[in-house]
């Protein structure tokens, strides 16, 4: 997993709440047996009309946000299905940071396994970012080490993250290798509960 710390990018404003994982990656694209290649299908039915033409009104098709690595959305982002194909699609498309007032539990947890930083900020702060980002391309600088998001105008917003997940992301660690350090504890538990 790619470590993550400082990210500077124009934000992509996705002004929707309850964005579910069915919208992030639709089921017709879940049949691959690899972890890669999902980016081109991210938000597919919002990006493309039924006839396959681009929906020019959808934010991902707005060239002003090309190359953006920070996605900003409203409440309860990633609700619904547990499919990890959702964070795979977000990452494969190029996003490394998702900022929202709240996230669904499974999606939130899946982000950390894939080197995506999910940041929770207040509704008012999100509203501000969405507004600014919609008017004109607006750059944010994220520091995981400092747990801050800094706006173009220098205003700084702090966010909480649990220390374990922070360490995993900063170092890009493979969780399974870490868990193997506790193998004796697992064996002990199994013997006790056999």
């Amino acid at each position, binding site marked *: 997993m790619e470590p993550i710390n400082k990210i500077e990018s124009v934000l992509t404003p996705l002004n929707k709440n*309850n964005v579910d994982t069915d919208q992030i990656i639709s089921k017709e694209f879940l049949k691959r047996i690899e972890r890669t290649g999902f980016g081109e299908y991210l938000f597919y039915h919002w990006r493309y009309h*039924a006839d396959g033409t681009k929906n020019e009104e959808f934010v991902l098709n707005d060239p002003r946000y090309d190359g953006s690595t920070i996605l900003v959305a409203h409440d*309860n982002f990633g*609700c619904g299905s*547990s499919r990890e194909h959702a964070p795979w699609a977000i990452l494969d498309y190029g996003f490394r940071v998702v900022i929202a007032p709240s996230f669904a*539990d*499974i999606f939130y947890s899946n982000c950390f396994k894939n080197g995506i930083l999910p940041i929770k900020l207040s509704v008012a702060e999100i509203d501000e970012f969405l507004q600014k980002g919609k008017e004109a391309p607006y750059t944010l600088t994220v520091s995981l080490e400092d747990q801050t998001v800094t706006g173009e105008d220098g205003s700084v917003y702090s966010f909480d993250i649990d220390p374990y997940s922070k360490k995993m992301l900063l170092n890009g660690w493979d969780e399974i290798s870490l868990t193997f350090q506790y193998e004796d504890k697992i064996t002990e538990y*199994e013997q006790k509960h056999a």
Partner: protein
Amino acid sequence: MAKTIIEKIWDEHIVYEEEGKPDLLYIDLHLIHEVTSPQAFEGLRLANRKVRRPDLCFATMDHNVPTKNLPVINDPIAKKQITTLEKNCEEFGVQLADMQHPDQGIVHIIGPELGLTQPGKTIVCGDSHTSTHGAFGAIAFGIGTSEVEHVLSTQTLWQSKPKTMEIRVTGQIGFGVTAKDIILAIISKFGIGVGTGHIVEYTGEAIRGLTMEERMTICNMSIEAGAKAGLIGPDETTINYLRGRRYAPQGEEFEAAAERWLALNTDEDAEYDQVLEIDADEIEPFVTWGTNPSMGSGISANIPTSADYVSETEKSALRSALEYMGLEEGMALTDIEIQHAFIGSCTNARLSDLEAAAKVVKGKHVHPTVTAIVVPGSRTVKKQAEEIGLDKIFTDAGFEWRESGCSMCLAMNDDVVPAGERCASTSNRNFEGRQGAGSRTHLVSPSMAAAAALHGHFVDVRKIEAAVQI
């Protein structure tokens, strides 16, 4: 200290704990299906790891499988996922109920059916509806594929202890009202994010009065309220369901287990982080009209108008949902015409669900403009239903009687609702495009879906059922 059942089960499964870290939690049962597991097995292969406890894993195929013309799979990519699961289970020694196996079915239907699901267990699966198994008083939750790989290789997961929430359902549901209506009413009243970060315990006399199959319907949709898991404390109903099931303890061992299970129940003076309450007496048969499961109302209500909401975000969510659904603000739910009815899914495809629908359709016929299918939740359910003649009731009424699988709940196989068409569905999600690109889903109970199939639009099933009884 007094504890809730949630804390009792959690604490019992801690392998290792340390300040500033999540708990390392032992997993008792890992259920596996074809869609969320291939990348996990591939990860094991690449790292040269094995499955630590294949005896605690059980696999089946459900998401992709066709529900007719078995065993032909037309979609080559779906076929690849299915053969990949076969190969993975063989290579890593995991027990598999494949497409032809008599135990095959939707993973959350067969776990309980086989007695794999038991009180006090920690149960995971790469599927958000794993919460279903909570009906037995287990902590059961959905995980992503990275966590599937983690459980395969270590039989554990790092998990931060969730908060606890009690949802108390007081009173009793009325005639024609089902477990599905209770959970839809809960989600509608409290919202789809209310359970985030929590494990929910459902309590109250309305819950106690439910059968195990009904309790599974409630717990199944905990995730639709955002909860990590939902459970119901074990009682005699739970024990009677499990007695004699293949993988449940047998004989004296069972009686000893039953005693342990009952002791798991929440202590009298235990406290929850949050308590919510809803009155079952006020719940009507529900119909969702929007694009998430909280956007629903009792059948006698009308679709809300923007004036009913305060915030601009909510108003705009209502407008965009109704635009997608092709509906108008303030419209009566009984005026919504449907073209499809789907009776199936891990929410409502158990024998009692099929019986409830059959009771409504017996001797009647599907409306000429409606295509209706019944997809039993497992091969066992299908066989049991056929033994009591339900298949005949459905086919005589013009329903198609299919093989088991997830089917039209998420339309990964050929069972798709065409764009712009509307489905009365007993499944769990009405997200945009859930049943096919451009499809429009209305979540309802099996008897409500059956009634809508007969009439071509939603009707209050209580009126029909009353007529049947006369």
